[in-house]
């Protein structure tokens, strides 16, 4: 069983996102350690991009802070090598197509496999373009995670039936960022996905509170939280690991405790 499938096996999963190198690489390391120690079942590691077109202001600023701290793809690979000596939960990279393509797709994905990165999430790689990276991902056994959006409609069957790892359900229109309310009929989307795939479904975009997390965990297999964590990091800087740990614990408790 893959590490990713394993993460969803027993309970609802809590997935944390961080931007690597925000505010610096050592703090990122400690944040990841704290997130894992406090119950994160999977961690999405964002490799910063200069122009993250699918992100709202919170993660855009994190990308900028990280790049200004001198972070590079190679330094992030080194960080993961260190992490893998102590952490066994699934880790996936979230980054933009150009970061992978420009590094050399084969070299990037081969390195992912070497350092035990389990999957890739690429927000600017829709189904139609997945062959840009899919053959290489298959060669090195790195899952290429598919996203399904509120606008996907008839595309759901096609995307879900070929998906790998887990399915990333985008909660609402727009870019990443905290939302006070999510109005999409996610129940219907997930039911539709389940007709075409037995992979776990995790919902992301806009989730920031334990209440929202619990609500999403009732209909999905996992909950992804990014901007709310990035906000904590922006506020506390190098002191952030402890606060992120506390937050992750509260969110994990919420997704585990979803009885009405």
């Amino acid at each position: 069983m893959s590490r990713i499938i394993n993460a969803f096996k027993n309970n609802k999963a809590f997935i944390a996102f961080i931007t690597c190198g925000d505010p610096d690489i050592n703090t990122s390391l400690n944040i990841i350690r704290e997130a894992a120690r406090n119950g994160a079942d999977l961690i999405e590691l964002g490799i910063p991009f200069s122009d993250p077109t699918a992100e709202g202001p919170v993660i855009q600023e994190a990308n900028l802070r990280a790049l200004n701290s001198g972070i590079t793809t190679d330094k992030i690979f080194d960080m993961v090598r260190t992490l893998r000596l102590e952490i066994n939960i699934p880790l996936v990279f979230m980054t933009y197509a150009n970061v992978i393509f420009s590094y050399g797709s084969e070299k990037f994905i081969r390195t992912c496999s070497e350092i035990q990165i389990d999957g890739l999430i690429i927000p600017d790689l829709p189904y139609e373009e997945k062959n840009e990276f899919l053959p290489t991902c298959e060669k090195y056994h790195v899952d290429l995670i598919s996203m399904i959006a509120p606008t996907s409609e008839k595309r759901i069957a096609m995307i879900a039936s070929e998906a790998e790892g887990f399915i990333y359900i985008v909660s609402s229109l727009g870019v990443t960022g905290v939302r006070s309310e999510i109005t999409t009929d996610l129940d219907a989307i997930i039911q539709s996905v389940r007709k075409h795939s037995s992979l776990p479904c995790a919902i992301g975009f806009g989730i920031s509170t334990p209440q929202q997390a619990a609500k999403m965990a009732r209909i999905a297999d996992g909950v992804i939280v990014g901007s709310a964590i990035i906000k904590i990091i922006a506020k506390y800087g190098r002191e952030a690991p402890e606060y992120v740990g506390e937050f992750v614990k509260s969110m994990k408790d919420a997704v585990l405790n979803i009885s009405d």
Partner: protein
Amino acid sequence: MSNQSGRFGIHGGQYIPETLMNAVIELEQAYNFYKNDKAFNHELEQLFNEYAGRPSRLYYASRMTEDLHGAKIYLKREDLNHTGAHKINNVLGQALLAKKMGKTRLIAETGAGQHGVATATAAALMGLSCVVFMGEEDTRRQALNVYKMRLLGAEVISVKTGTGTLKDAVSEAFREWTSRIADTHYCLGSVMGPHPFPTIVRDFQSVISREIKAQILQRENKLPDYVIACVGGGSNAMGSFWHFINDKSVKLIGCEAAGRGINTPETAATIATGRLGIFHGMKSYFCQDNYGQIAPVYSISAGLDYPGIGPEHAYLHDIKRASYVPVTDEEAVNAFEYLSRTEGIIPAIESAHAVSHAIKLAKTLSRENIIVITISGRGDKDCAAIARYRGENINE
């Protein structure tokens, strides 16, 4: 020239979030229907002729020709179009298409402000609401155009992220489209972005080369030897090249903004300094660092200040059908002043990049040769900035 998935050789494609996929598919289907629809084409032609003032003149620049002692020079006067640039061609097409699709709101990015003004104009004409994203730096460089857009009823949003220039305005327009699709059409201003935009924009701009061809055949009874246009994303160049692509004797030259020089970091010359990448929905050439971070490019021209180039240009470069040359700020400003003095035509600083290269080239040719330069826009918007570049203390 694109295949079904919008590829030009290896370039192009649709590298966009899943959220936008149905929107571009819907756009492609609508476009494929309307581009062959008689009523649509008739309506667009009426708009081109009666509203935008087409066909634009192909003007024989006799004083420039005399002065340079070389090739005969013709200027394709897109600067004489309503709103002062070629941008209106694409915008009228897309606005009409959006209206047929039942959209009630246009969003657009703008660099120099010409595409923003054109979009605001078409929105006013067709009763659509309009929001234009413009980099903060550009709202300062092109303050008059910001006022014009507001005057025309558009909302102008100053984009403060990144370098506060055209690429950031494009990113912000994409973000806005992702959050509001049902009633909104993204009126992209150049031959770039995800399929089908490079094809749609090229088709609407191809009226430029269709007219050049008919006009030069009538005047000279032969095709030109060179067609020269400036290239940022590349819409006026693509429009100027399109109907000549199969005429192998016609050399096609795109002039990129070299800024302070292609050996400095302050440049926007994508073909000269960029490499293959994936950004803003397309595979093409981009100015970027070793890790694929997009470079903060620079040019005196807000309209050419973009780190990429449209995918069809990248393809024409690959197959060597067109060539691309860098032109510096200083060279462009010299050409801006030269054309003003010599022909009484103040070109946009963007177009001055093409004029600059044509001046160099013309001197190496004889009167038997014909050069057509597309004057993509007029230079009123640039006068204050060029005066400041020359050290004059002037406000707009």
